[in-house]
Every structure is written in C-alpha cells, then in structure tokens.
C-alpha cells in the first residue's frame, strides 16, 4: 500500500511538473505535433489531406479542424482584385490612402487591440472550428484572438446591437455550405493590415465549403454601405493544419510601438 501511495505521489509530482511546463523542449511546445484521432492517413502514416470531406451523422460536412489562411489576404484582403474593383466611397478611399501613406502605422493590432472580422479569419495564425455534436452552435477558437460563437439555432441577428470588436454571428447550412452572417461591429477594425476601413454598418458573410479533408474555400462578402458603394466579395482558401492544436499567442504590450514612425 505504501509503495502504491508513493507511486501515486510520484505520478502526481511528475504531472505537476508537466503542468508547470518544467519539461524539455519537444514536450514544452504543448501539442504542437500530436496525432489527432480520426485523421485519415496514407500508408506512411501522414495525414491524407485529399481524403474525402468528413461528414456528421446527419450527412452535413464536419467542419471541425485547425485551419489557417493565406498570407496575402491578411496583408491585403483585396489582393486578387483590381484597385477599381474595391468600391470604396470617396471618404473611405481617402482614409485608406492615408493609412497606406503612413505604412499602416495606426494598425489596431500593432497596439494589441483585437482582430475584428474578417481579419481574424485571414491572419496566418490558425483558428480551430469546433462543431459541437447535438448543439445548434459552432465555436471558433483562435490562436491570436478571442473565441467566437456562431449560433445555428435559427435566431436572427440583433437589430440594434451594441457595437463590438467581434460582432454577433449566426450560421446556417445552404446545401453543403456553412454560411455565417455577422453584424454589430464597432467600426474600429481594419479589414486587413493595409487598412481597408470599416464602419459600424459592417455586415460580413462567410461562406465555407470543405472541399476535402485538408482544404476549404471561403468566400467573404463585405457589405458596409457607409464605406463601400456596394457589397464586394473576396475568396480565400484556408488549409487544414493536421496533427496539431492551437498554441498560446497572447499579444503583450507591443514594445515596437514607440519605434513605429510610419513613412
């Protein structure tokens, strides 16, 4: 019995040490690399990213996974559009030009302020989409931003919402597409690091389509009548990061700020 207790004590002590992170490098990196159950694999044991889209019991695509966007859209969400295809209103264009002329010195994220939509989807830090079985809700967790709840229970978007950084999100299925509508933003978020502006009138629609196990398409519609003359769309292509989990990325007070001089 005594040995048994001692063994348990040792297990407890070792667990505590692990929890405290006092462990060698490869393990300290949390679950940076860890085989995720349910991942289809090739003969070499590696994740088969072109395996068919996994399905929920009801036949809908299972969107669960750790996903990451493409760099160029984080820098410029309109990277694939011609300049005149972004329908900026004159005042919005002026503001955008001012931000560009100043090399995005006033980017809110440089002050550790939150990432708003759609930047939190396009930034090249991963997000984890979780489809909660049996619940009419999905959750997105972010490596570098606050989590987000997407209500799938049929509720409408709030009519006169209190402005917020992250907005309010509802989702629905259109065939195999997951369509998320969000409003209630505070107008302080930038669409990208270049500084495409937003207002409180911003309404973002995201249409996710899981093409196969490792790939999805994401069509983002920006509808902000105060900043843009009409709704406009961009297409992203997030990829799955297999066999990994989110890490911690807390934005500490940005020490570079005093050195950001702009142009």
């Amino acid at each position, binding site marked *: 019995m005594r040995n048994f207790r001692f063994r348990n004590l040792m297990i407890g002590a070792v667990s505590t040490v692990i929890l405290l992170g006092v462990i060698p*490098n490869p393990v*300290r*990196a949390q679950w*940076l690399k860890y085989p995720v159950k349910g991942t289809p694999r090739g003969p070499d044991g590696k994740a088969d990213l072109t395996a068919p889209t996994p399905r929920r019991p009801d036949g809908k695509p299972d969107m669960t996974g750790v996903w990451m966007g493409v*760099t*160029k859209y*984080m*820098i*410029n969400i309109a*990277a694939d559009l011609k300049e005149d295809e972004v329908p900026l209103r004159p005042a919005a264009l002026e503001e955008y030009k001012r931000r560009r002329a*100043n*090399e*995005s*010195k006033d*980017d809110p*994220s*440089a002050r*550790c302020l939150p990432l708003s939509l759609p930047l939190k989807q396009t*930034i*090249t*830090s991963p997000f984890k989409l979780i489809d909660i079985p049996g619940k009419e809700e999905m959750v997105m967790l972010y*490596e*570098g931003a606050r989590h987000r709840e997407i209500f799938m229970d049929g509720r409408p978007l709030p009519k006169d919402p209190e402005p917020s950084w992250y907005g309010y999100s509802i989702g629905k299925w259109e065939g195999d597409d997951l369509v998320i509508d969000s409003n209630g933003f505070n107008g302080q978020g930038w669409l990208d*690091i*270049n500084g495409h502006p937003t207002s409180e009138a911003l309404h973002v629609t995201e249409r996710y389509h899981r093409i196969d196990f490792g790939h999805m398409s994401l069509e983002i519609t920006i509808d902000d009548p105060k900043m843009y003359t009409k709704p406009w769309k961009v297409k992203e292509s997030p990829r799955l*990061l297999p066999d*990994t989990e989110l*890490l*911690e*990325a*807390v*934005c*500490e007070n*940005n*020490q*570079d700020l005093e*050195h*950001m*001089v*702009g142009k």
Partner: protein
Amino acid sequence: MKSLIVVSGIMLAAAAHLSAHHSFAAEFDASKRVTLKGTVTRVDWRNPHIYVYLNVKDASGAVTEWACEGGPPNVLMREGWTRDSVKEGDQVTIDGALAKDGSKRCNSRSVNLADGRRVFAGSSEDSAGKQ
C-alpha cells in the same frame, strides 16, 4: 537538433507563409540593409515578436548592443524553433533591415549560428512586400 536542421532546410519555402503582426514598413526600412555579427546577450521570447539582443564589436573594439526583431513565438514554434534555439553566448550573424527611427534595432530576415545553421526565420518583412 535533428529537427532544427531539417526545418532549416525548408525555411526558405516556409518564410513566405509567416505572419506579420503589424506593418513592417512603419518601423523598418527595407532599403537599408544591415549585417550584424556578434554575441547573443539575451533572447526575449515574447509576443507579438521575439527579440534577439546581441553585442557587436566594431573595428575600434567598441561594443554596441543591438536588438533585432523576429517572428511571433507561435509562428516560430510551428516552424520548429524554440526559445532555446539561440542562447546567450552564441555567435550569430543577422541579416536584416534597419529601424527607421535610427535606433540600434533591426528586423532580422535571417539569423545564422556560427556553424551555419539558420534559425528564427519569420520576419514580418517576408510578407510585407505583398501589397
């Protein structure tokens, strides 16, 4: 160590995917390059960007401390680095871009150890040019 060497092999391809937390150009001048050879005094492994501090000796023997920015820890970890990849006392060569405000700071495009291994890729400059 083995994984570090493997990772350094794919570093160039990976660098294009690394994230910029904030505008590179507001802080650094891509046209003003600098190569610094010196001794690491400290690695500040923190968000949103790590910093490598190094003492650089000039021809007259005078020592100046420089601070060079790298990528965010989570991005670097995904590329295989840890806070111990570069340690105090290591001899390093950093290629980077100078700070616009004239301070002894740079944005490191590459950090090479004395044995040639390249570590801590992930400069915000890599993605900053893509407007």
